[in-house]
C-alpha cells in the first residue's frame, strides 16, 4: 500500500493508505481527543469525542475509524468541533455520578481530563433523569460501579477480544443500557479470571481493585505482628510512572526504600521466590521428560491463566505445573523456613505482596495455599495501591535514596527479575534446565527467541541430544490458540509458558493505568519489559540455581528440588470450574 496526501489543519500531511485520520494526525503531531477508542481493541467510533470536519462530508466524522484519502482536507479544532466535543461531554455528565472528590481515579481520569481541557463549565448543564446502580462487589479482586460508567465498552472489548473471556458486556438498550454480566450475575459468579485488564482499559473510576491499603497499615500498626513485604518483578518497572518518571524507568532502589519507610519489618523480594519457582519447575520439567509424565508442562505462575484453564480447559489441568506461583512460594517459605529460622510463630507473621496483578487477590484465598498452617500470603496489593499507600503515608518518592532488600529472602538473580515479561519464565527455566541436562555451564544465558511482545512465540532448542520444543503465549486469546491445539493433540511442545496479560506481568491489570493517548501509540509492554531485561543484564548472577540464598534454603531446609518437603510447601493443586 502506498501513501496518500492530505491536509490537516492546513498542513500538508502524508500518511499510509488505510490509516485513520486519527493516526495521520498523531503522526503529524496533532492531538485529537478520544474516549472510547482503544487501538485494535475497541474501534467502534461511538463516543464522538474524536470528531473532525472533513471538507465535503455532510456530518462530522469519527477520526478514529475514518480512513484517510487522497486530497482530503481535515480540520480538527474548529469552534464547531470544540463545541460539539464539549456538548458530548455534558451529555455524558448528565447521567454520571460526579463524585470526583472521593473517586479513586480522580486526577488520572480521562473523562475528568477532557472536561477540563474542553472547558466544561457546568457539569449539570443537561440535568434530567438519571440511573442508579448498586455496586457489584461480588468478585474478590474488584468493584464495578456503573454509576461512573460512560458505556465506552473498552472493558468489554478487552475482556472478549484480548482475553477470550467475555463475562462483561452491554445489556439492554438506549437509556437503560448498562455494562453487566449475563442474567445480572455478580462478576464473582461468572468465569471472570480476575486479570484486571478491564480496569486497565477503563477511562474512568467505574472499575477498580478492592483496596487493601488500610489492611496493610493496620498490620504494620499491630505491635504483635511481624510484617514482611515482597514486591513482584514488574512493580519496579512501572511504579515510577505514578511519580512522574518516564515509562521505562527502573525504580527498584526507591521502591525498596519506600517500603522500608512505610514500616514493613522486612523488605524482601518476590524475585527471590521467582528463583525458587525455577528450581522447582525446572526439576518438575526434567522429571516429566525423564519419567514420561504429562507434556507439555505448562507454567502456573499467572493466577489469571490458572483460573482460565480451570474454567475453560478443565480437562487439561494435568498439564499445569504443580508449582505454586512465586507470590505463594514466597509466603510459604516465609511462614515455614523463615518463621523457624527467626523463631516467630507463622500466625504472627503478616506476609504482604505488591503485585502488578489483581488476580493475585484471588490467588491468596485459594485452597491448598497454606504451607505453614495459615494462609501463605495475607494481603496482596497492586502496584497502583502501593503508589496510593506511598502518597497516603507522606513519602516523597522522588527524593528517596536507592536501597537494597533484606536478607535472607531478598537476594535474587537476573532469572528472577525477567519473570515479569512474556517469555521470561521460559528463559529463566531454560537457563537452569539446560545446565542441569547438559552438566555444562551455558556460554550465553540469553534465549532471545522467546523474548519480545508477540502473542505467541515458538522455539526449538537442542539440549543434550534432545530437541526441546517450547512455546510462549501471553494474553488469553493467544493461550486459547495453544490450548485448542493441545486439546486436539496437534501440538508437540515439551514446555509452554502462559501469562494471562498481553506482554506478561509488566502489562498486568494491577499496574499503573496508561492513558489511551499513550497506550494507543506506544508499545507499553516492550518499554516496561526492557527495564527487566536491562536489570537482568546488569546482574552478576543470572541463573536461579546460582542464587546463594536459594542454595541455603535447600541445604538448610528443603533438601533437593522436588523433595517431599519441597512438595508439601511449594506445590499445590487445581480444581475444575464451569463457564458462566
Amino acid at each position, binding site marked *: 500500500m502506498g501513501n496518500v496526501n492530505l491536509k490537516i489543519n492546513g498542513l500538508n500531511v502524508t500518511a499510509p493508505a488505510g490509516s485513520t485520520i486519527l493516526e495521520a494526525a498523531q503522526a503529524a503531531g496533532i492531538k485529537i481527543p478520544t474516549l472510547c477508542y482503544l487501538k485494535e481493541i475497541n474501534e467502534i467510533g461511538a463516543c464522538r469525542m474524536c470528531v473532525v470536519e472533513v471538507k465535503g462530508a455532510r456530518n462530522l466524522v469519527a477520526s478514529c475509524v475514518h480512513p484517510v484519502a487522497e486530497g482530503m482536507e481535515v480540520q480538527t479544532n474548529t469552534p464547531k468541533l470544540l463545541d460539539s466535543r464539549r456538548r458530548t461531554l455534558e451529555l455524558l455528565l448528565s447521567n454520571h455520578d460526579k463524585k470526583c472528590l472521593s473517586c479513586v481515579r480522580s486526577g488520572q481520569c480521562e473523562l475528568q481530563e477532557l472536561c477540563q481541557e474542553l472547558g466544561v463549565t457546568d457539569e449539570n448543564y443537561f440535568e434530567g433523569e438519571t440511573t442508579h446502580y448498586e455496586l457489584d462487589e461480588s468478585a474478590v479482586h474488584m468493584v464495578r460501579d456503573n454509576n461512573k460508567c460512560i458505556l465506552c465498552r473498552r472493558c468489554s472489548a478487552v475482556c472478549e477480544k484480548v482475553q477470550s473471556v467475555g463475562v462483561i*458486556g*452491554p*445489556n*439492554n438498550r438506549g437509556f437503560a443500557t448498562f455494562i453487566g454480566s449475563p442474567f445480572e450475575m455478580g462478576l464473582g459468579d461468572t468465569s471472570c479470571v480476575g486479570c484486571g485488564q478491564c480496569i486497565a482499559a477503563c477511562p474512568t473510576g467505574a472499575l477498580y481493585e478492592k483496596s487493601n491499603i488500610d489492611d496493610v497499615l493496620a498490620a504494620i500498626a499491630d505491635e504483635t505482628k511481624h510484617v514482611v513485604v515482597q514486591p513482584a518483578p514488574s512493580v519496579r518497572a512501572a511504579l515510577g510512572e505514578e511519580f512522574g518518571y518516564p515509562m521505562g524507568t527502573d525504580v527498584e532502589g526507591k521502591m525498596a526504600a519506600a517500603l522500608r519507610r512505610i514500616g514493613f519489618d522486612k523488605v524482601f523480594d518476590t524475585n527471590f521466590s521467582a528463583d525458587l519457582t525455577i528450581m522447582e519447575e525446572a526439576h518438575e520439567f526434567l522429571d516429566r521428560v525423564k519419567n514420561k509424565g504429562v507434556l507439555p508442562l505448562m507454567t502456573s505462575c499467572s493466577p489469571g491463566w490458572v483460573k482460565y484453564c480451570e474454567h475453560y480447559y478443565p480437562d487439561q489441568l494435568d498439564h499445569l505445573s504443580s508449582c505454586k506461583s512465586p507470590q505463594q512460594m514466597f509466603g510459604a517459605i516465609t511462614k515455614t523456613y523463615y518463621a523457624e529460622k527467626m523463631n516467630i510463630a507463622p500466625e504472627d507473621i503478616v506476609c504482604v505482596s505488591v503485585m502488578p496483578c489483581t488476580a493475585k487477590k484471588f490467588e491468596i484465598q485459594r485452597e491448598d495455599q497454606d504451607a505453614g498452617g495459615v494462609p501463605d500470603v495475607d494481603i496482596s496489593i497492586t502496584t497502583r495501591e502501593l503508589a496510593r499507600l506511598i502518597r497516603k503515608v507522606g513519602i516523597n518518592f522522588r527524593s528517596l535514596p536507592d536501597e537494597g532488600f533484606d536478607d535472607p529472602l531478598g537476594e535474587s538473580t537476573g532469572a528472577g527479575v525477567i519473570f515479569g515479561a512474556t517469555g521470561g519464565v521460559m528463559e529463566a527455566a531454560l537457563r537452569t534446565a539446560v545446565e542441569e541436562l547438559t552438566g555444562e555451564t551455558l556460554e550465553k544465558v540469553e534465549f532471545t527467541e522467546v523474548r519480545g511482545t508477540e502473542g505467541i512465540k515458538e522455539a526449538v532448542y537442542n539440549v543434550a541430544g534432545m530437541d526441546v520444543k517450547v512455546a510462549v503465549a501471553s494474553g488469553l486469546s493467544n493461550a486459547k490458540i495453544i490450548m485448542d491445539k493441545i486439546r486436539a493433540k496437534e501440538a508437540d511442545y515439551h514446555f509452554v509458558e502462559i501469562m494471562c496479560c498481553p506482554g506478561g506481568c509488566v502489562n498486568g491489570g494491577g499496574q499503573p493505568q496508561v492513558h489511551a493517548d499513550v497506550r494507543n501509540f506506544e508499545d507499553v509492554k516492550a518499554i516496561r519489559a526492557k527495564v527487566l531485561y536491562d536489570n537482568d543484564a546488569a546482574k552478576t548472577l543470572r541463573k536461579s540455581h546460582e542464587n546463594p540464598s536459594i542454595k541455603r534454603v535447600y541445604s538448610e531446609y528443603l533438601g533437593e528440588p522436588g523433595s517431599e518437603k519441597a512438595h508439601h510447601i511449594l506445590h499445590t493443586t487445581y480444581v475444575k470450574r464451569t463457564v458462566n
Partner: protein
Amino acid sequence: MAEKKATVPFSGTKEQEEALMKVIHELKDEKGALMPILQKAQDIYGYLPIEVQKMISDETGIPMEKIYGVATFYSQFTLSPKGKYRISVCLGTACYVKGSGDIYNALMEKLGIVGGECTPDGKFSLDACRCVGACGLAPVMMINDEVYGRLTVDDLDDILAKYE
C-alpha cells in the same frame, strides 16, 4: 429495564433440545449466526431463558454475556415465557387517556408480576401493547383473542376469575 430471570421454572423437553441443537449445528459456522439462532430458539421454546442461552453458549462458544446482551437489546426477544392466558393491555393514546395505565398497574399488582413477566404457575402473562383497533371501546385489553373494552379497575377481578 427489562425483566431478567424467568419467574416460571424451565420445562424444556428432549424434543425441543434436539430441535435447538439441529438449528445451532446448521448455523453456527456462519458469520452473524447468533441472531438467527436466537430467533429460532425463541420459536422452539417461546422465550429465551438462561437454560436455553447456556445451551447456545456451550455449543457455539459465544460467551453467555454476548448472547444475553443481544437478547436484551432487541425487543423481539423475551426472557419470560408467555402464559396460558396472554393479557395485553393497550397503552395506545386513546386507551391511555381513558385510564388504561391504571388497568395495567392494577393487573401488575393483582398478578404479582411486572409487564413482560409470567406468573409462576404459568397461567397469566402480562404485556403492554399499542392500538388494537378498538379505540371506540377504550380502555381495552385482550386475553388471548378475547377483547375486553370500556374497562374499569373494578371489572378486573371478575374477568380474571373466568380464567381461574
